[in-house]
């Protein structure tokens, strides 16, 4: 596992974001950065090194997951970063994986392991 690239977790709910980040760190998925909405995520992507995977919630204030995904695909630097959608009901086309909330932790670990390998 090459975990150096790490994960960018985009989720508006603070508790869920922290619990998820803790879990990912515990599982050894390398550095986990977080953002509370799409706009913050884009800023972090522009400022720092690209993560190995983006974990993306869809329903968020300020900039939602759909708008974030459009902006990401429009930027050739960011477009190749794999995206895993974590959402209550909806999903996005052409993403690496979609997981329903509440998230099945084994399924999430499996997907991340595959993408970060």
């Amino acid at each position, binding site marked *: 596992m090459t975990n150096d690239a790490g994960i960018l977790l985009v989720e508006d*709910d603070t*508790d*869920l974001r922290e*619990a*998820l980040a*803790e*879990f990912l760190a*515990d*599982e050894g998925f390398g550095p986990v950065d977080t953002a509370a909405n799409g706009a913050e995520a884009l800023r972090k992507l522009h400022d720092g090194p690209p993560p190995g995977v983006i974990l993306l919630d869809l*329903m968020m204030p300020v900039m939602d997951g759909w708008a974030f995904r459009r902006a990401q695909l429009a930027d050739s630097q960011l477009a190749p970063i794999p995206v895993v959608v974590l959402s*209550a*009901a909806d999903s996005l086309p052409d993403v690496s994986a979609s997981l329903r*909330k*509440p*998230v099945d*932790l084994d399924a999430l670990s499996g997907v991340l392991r595959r993408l970060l390998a």
Partner: protein
Amino acid sequence: MSSLRRSPAPSTLLAYASDVFAAAPDPESIHGTIAKLAVPAFADACVVLRVSDDGALRQVATAAARADQERRIACSARLPIAADALVARALSQGRSRIAADLISRRTILLADEEDFGPPTPVSAVAVPMIARGALLGAVLFLSTADSGRFLGESDLPLAEELTRRAAVSLDNARLLEEARATATRLLNMQRVGAAVALARTPREVAAAALPHVAAAVNAASAALWMVDGESRRLDLLDSHGWPERFRAPGQRAPLDLDVPLAECARDGQPRWYSGAEDVSRILATLAPGLVLLGPQTGFGLIPLVTESRTVGVLAVSRRGTRLEEDDRSLLLALAAQCATALDRARLLEDLRDAVRLRDEFLSIAAHELRTPLSTIQLSIGSALKAHERSAEILPERAHQRLQRAGDQVRKLAELLERLLDVSRITAGRLVLSLEETDLAATLRDLVGRHEDPAARVALEGAENPVRGTWDRLRLEQAVTNLLSNAIKYGEGKPVHVRLSADDNEATIEVRDRGIGIAHDDRSRIFGRFERAVSPRNFGGFGVGLWITREIVEAMHGRIELESGVGEGSTFRIVLPREALA
């Protein structure tokens, strides 16, 4: 005095009269027939008079042996009849009067003796027309000087019998007319009733009813307003016969406005207007600038009243004539029909709104509950995983409690998933992802996961692959629902799952030996939020079978049920091998 009975014999005359009366059952023909039969058979002139609705006596038919006399009598038709005239006295006393010695014409009929001209009347008999106790009018028989005829006592039987038969015929004609009017009225009510029966919204009620209401009273226009739920304003639902630009829905008027329309809705009393001026003044208050084609002379505002309140107002206008008593009573009856239909349509609309709100609430609630549940599940899950990884960072009791909490959170998540399925299916968003699936392997896997100490699940017929194109996850969900029900209601007895297939169909049977389902409950249990048992004894939302059926039907399959109380239940899912989406 009795050179009169020239021709024909009285009995022949009466028989003939009866025949003619029967053949001509309208009042005008009967009036004319009396006069024509009397002259010249036993009188030289005859005048038929009817009591009209306002109580006045009016000449309705005349006959005279000489044409000039008949013209004169006919001319006098418009003149008032003196109170002391022979016919007036016959009427007021309710019996025949004879004037054998004729003096002044005035005492016989009306005003001026000159009118009648020569030859002068010399005798007269006035017979009241009475049917079933009601005074219909009178018949005046006259003899004139030139004929040498005198009318007296001996002529009474024939005159009275002829008049009596005429009265009976007139009464029958009136009854027939009333029966016809009643039939027409019933027909109109039936038409309105049929028109509004299928209306699902208040606006549909108005659109369906108004043309029939207008036709029923021959009205030029009709319009319907509804009082809003909070009794604050009147909304125009639709109009018939109004210029197009006034017809547009959305016109509304505050209920406390000082105009007859709002007053009618407030006090629930009908209002009637007649005369072109009055009516055009009222019309202008209904909608600003409203003018209808041609002078409207009859107008009514009729409240739509149900048991508890006034739900709307009907406005009807008619060209040419005012709205009479029978029009008014018909309009009141039609308004009552519209009121019931309007009330029902509004309740239906409220109900639809309530169902929509419930579904929306369900969807929002399920979505909102997901995030906190995710966090709890995640926290418990990662604590348990950390415990497994670095072995026993948690004390044993804490570990057990956390595991229990984790199990409950998973159940909660499953329940939420069901609620979300309900709102997805209701919104038509159940999307299948079809793939090549081996049903035998799916069932083996599923039954393996249902190793419940409370009930043994036996699987038959799943040794060889049964392949087809289905949504594997949704199918698992459907079978899981049946399996959990079988275990839940199976009273701990073994549950059998059987798979069979031919070239076209695959059948999954889930059989239990438990409490069973009463016949009456069988179709109901597939409904949303339905269950055959008391929610006090068995939990759940009552959506499992509904979801199961929706999934199976989405794959063009069907679900069958055999059951009896105390005999257990067998649910059968029958699927085409290729589920064409």
